[in-house]
């Protein structure tokens, strides 16, 4: 039994240059005109042959550039739009967070809007009353709940919208981008909540530019580009392919700039190898708490010395970023001389719990534009003295005072 099934879905928009949008216009049309003057319909395929199968109890991530058709797909899934061709089947009660503040009436207080939203999502007043405390608590707007929504900041609207949409016990939760609004603490709480709902068996469909979240939270993912499915399956693979394409695009752009620009600025840096070292020895397993070096061998093939930045990110294999160091944040750019070089960052202590970890390496030009990324993550394992839950094993002392 699938929660969401999309079969060979096509969506066409008719970009009619000159649609009659008033009765007056319509009457004018009735005056005969030479045939050639009639505006042509321009078909535009927003989605082409999309097939997605999302089994019950799973979660699905959608990635893609702006304008790739992600939102159109969500609108079709929430039945606010109809497909041109193909079948969709959504079984279960859907709660959606597609647009910020959608469904809020500006003149109404937060509380009244919660009731109104509840009835749009198909929840009765009684049920909403029981949830009210929880919603106010989560949205963190207790002092303002009886104030008109028009006086809310966009962050407050986003928080309330998210709280309502996730508090109505949906069987399927569809979330689009809204997490981009709100501070980091709230985004984290949103992700925690989505994750908790997922554990509780809610089907999640998430559109996000937060690729880490997609990798970490989703069981499957699809990458859509210009209405066409590029890749579907394991979120790691999909996100990797998507990232790769973005890097390729950037490289293409940089090369174009390099060709057009007279002074070879931003010439390519080639990354040759990346690994972990302890005391100059290449290792793939480290003791928790020891000092280590992250190494990336690169080659300045531009023929000129160039300035740039470097960053390393340590991740858990499920995508959770644990620590990130970036020279962009640390100070002025470093200079890479012509030819090969070793980019070393020394971490005096890294107190990770036992497990597998990965490091991403990336280099940037002096303006912070991403130039290259080490494609295969640097893998290493950590052994701690004790097997403890959590991310870190910190030095600690016990005392009875």
């Amino acid at each position, binding site marked *: 039994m699938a929660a969401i099934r999309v079969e060979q879905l096509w969506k066409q928009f008719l970009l009619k240059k000159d649609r009659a949008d008033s009765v007056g216009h319509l009457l004018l049309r009735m005056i005969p005109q030479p045939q050639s003057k009639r505006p042509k319909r321009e078909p535009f395929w927003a989605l082409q042959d999309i097939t997605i199968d999302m089994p019950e109890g799973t979660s699905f991530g959608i990635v893609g550039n702006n304008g790739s058709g992600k939102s159109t797909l969500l*609108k079709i899934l929430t039945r*606010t739009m109809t497909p041109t061709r193909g079948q969709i089947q959504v079984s279960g009660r859907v709660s959606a967070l597609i647009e910020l503040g959608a469904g809020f009436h500006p003149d109404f207080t937060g509380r009244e809007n919660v009731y109104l939203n509840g009835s749009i999502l198909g929840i009765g007043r009684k049920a909403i009353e029981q949830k009210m405390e929880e919603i106010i608590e989560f949205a963190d707007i207790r002092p303002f709940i009886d104030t008109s929504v028009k006086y809310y900041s966009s962050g407050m609207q986003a928080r309330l919208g998210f709280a309502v949409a996730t508090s109505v016990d949906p069987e399927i939760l569809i979330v689009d981008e809204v997490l981009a609004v709100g501070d980091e603490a709230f985004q984290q709480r949103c992700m925690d909540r989505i994750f908790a709902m997922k554990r509780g068996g809610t089907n999640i469909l998430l559109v996000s530019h937060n690729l880490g979240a997609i990798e970490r939270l989703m069981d499957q993912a699809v990458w859509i580009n210009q209405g066409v499915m590029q890749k579907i399956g394991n979120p790691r693979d999909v996100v990797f392919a998507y990232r790769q394409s973005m890097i390729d695009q950037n490289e293409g752009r940089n090369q174009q700039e390099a060709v057009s620009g007279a002074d070879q600025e931003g010439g390519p840096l080639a990354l040759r190898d990346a690994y972990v070292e302890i005391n100059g020895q290449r290792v793939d397993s480290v003791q928790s708490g020891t000092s280590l070096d992250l190494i990336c061998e690169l080659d300045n093939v531009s023929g000129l010395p160039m300035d740039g930045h470097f960053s390393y990110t340590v991740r858990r294999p499920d995508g959770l970023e644990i620590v990130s160091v970036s020279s962009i944040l640390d100070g002025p750019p470093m200079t890479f001389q012509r030819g090969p070089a070793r980019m070393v960052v020394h971490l005096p202590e890294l107190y990770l719990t036992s497990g597998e970890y990965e490091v991403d390496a990336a280099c940037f030009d002096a303006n912070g534009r991403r130039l290259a990324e080490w494609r295969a993550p640097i893998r290493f394992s950590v052994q701690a003295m004790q097997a403890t839950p959590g991310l870190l094993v910190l030095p600690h002392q016990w005392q009875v005072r």
Partner: protein
Amino acid sequence: MGLWFELTRNLASRDVETRYKHSLLGLYWAIINPLVTAAIFGFIFGVIFHVKTKPIPYVVFYLAGLTFWNFFANGIMSAVGSVSGNSALLAKIYFPRVVLPTASILARFIDFLFSMGVFIIFILIYQVPVHWTSLWLPAILLIQIFFTMGIGYMVAALNVLYRDMTQLMGLLLMVWLYFSPVIYRLSQVPKTLQTILLIDPMGTIIELERNVIFTGHILYPEYLWVAVAWTGLVFLGGLALFKRVEPMFAEVM
């Protein structure tokens, strides 16, 4: 299904509340408007042209016609913009869009109840005898509501495609008002014209509503069936048109 009723109710009460919350003369539209119009018509036709409305005092006569007519006209005018003015709701999630015009007509029905109150007060002040056939009023009102909804669905859907439906309906309703026996009696009209006016269901409905309250003489009962047939046709046709245009809402807006 019950949930959609609740949504309709919530939207309607939202509509009424906003209207009364945010204007100083909250009840202005529902009460003062028909009063002022009735006073104007009373002045022009009663005082200047000496039109006979006996045995009913002319203020009560005009108020009767206008109270029922305003429910129809305001219902239509609210329904016109109900879909196009609620794009924030449309973007949210699927619910039967027909809820929107229905809710706005329901909201005008609440207004209508207020103005009915004023109308009753005037009947009491002028001590106009009310006929027992008034008990039929709810049945006739029901026909009027369905007719209003039918037209409301049509114009609400069309207004999404053609945004000047509002102006067009404003004009049309003005013409319609003068061609219906709202500010005159059907018996004052030449015989040949009467038939034409009775074919218009609003003509029959308004005439009936006034007659059951004041005289109890149902002069043209056979035209009631014409009005019922029209209502059925318009309601189903309006609903069908609405359903037909509904898939285009999200794309056009």
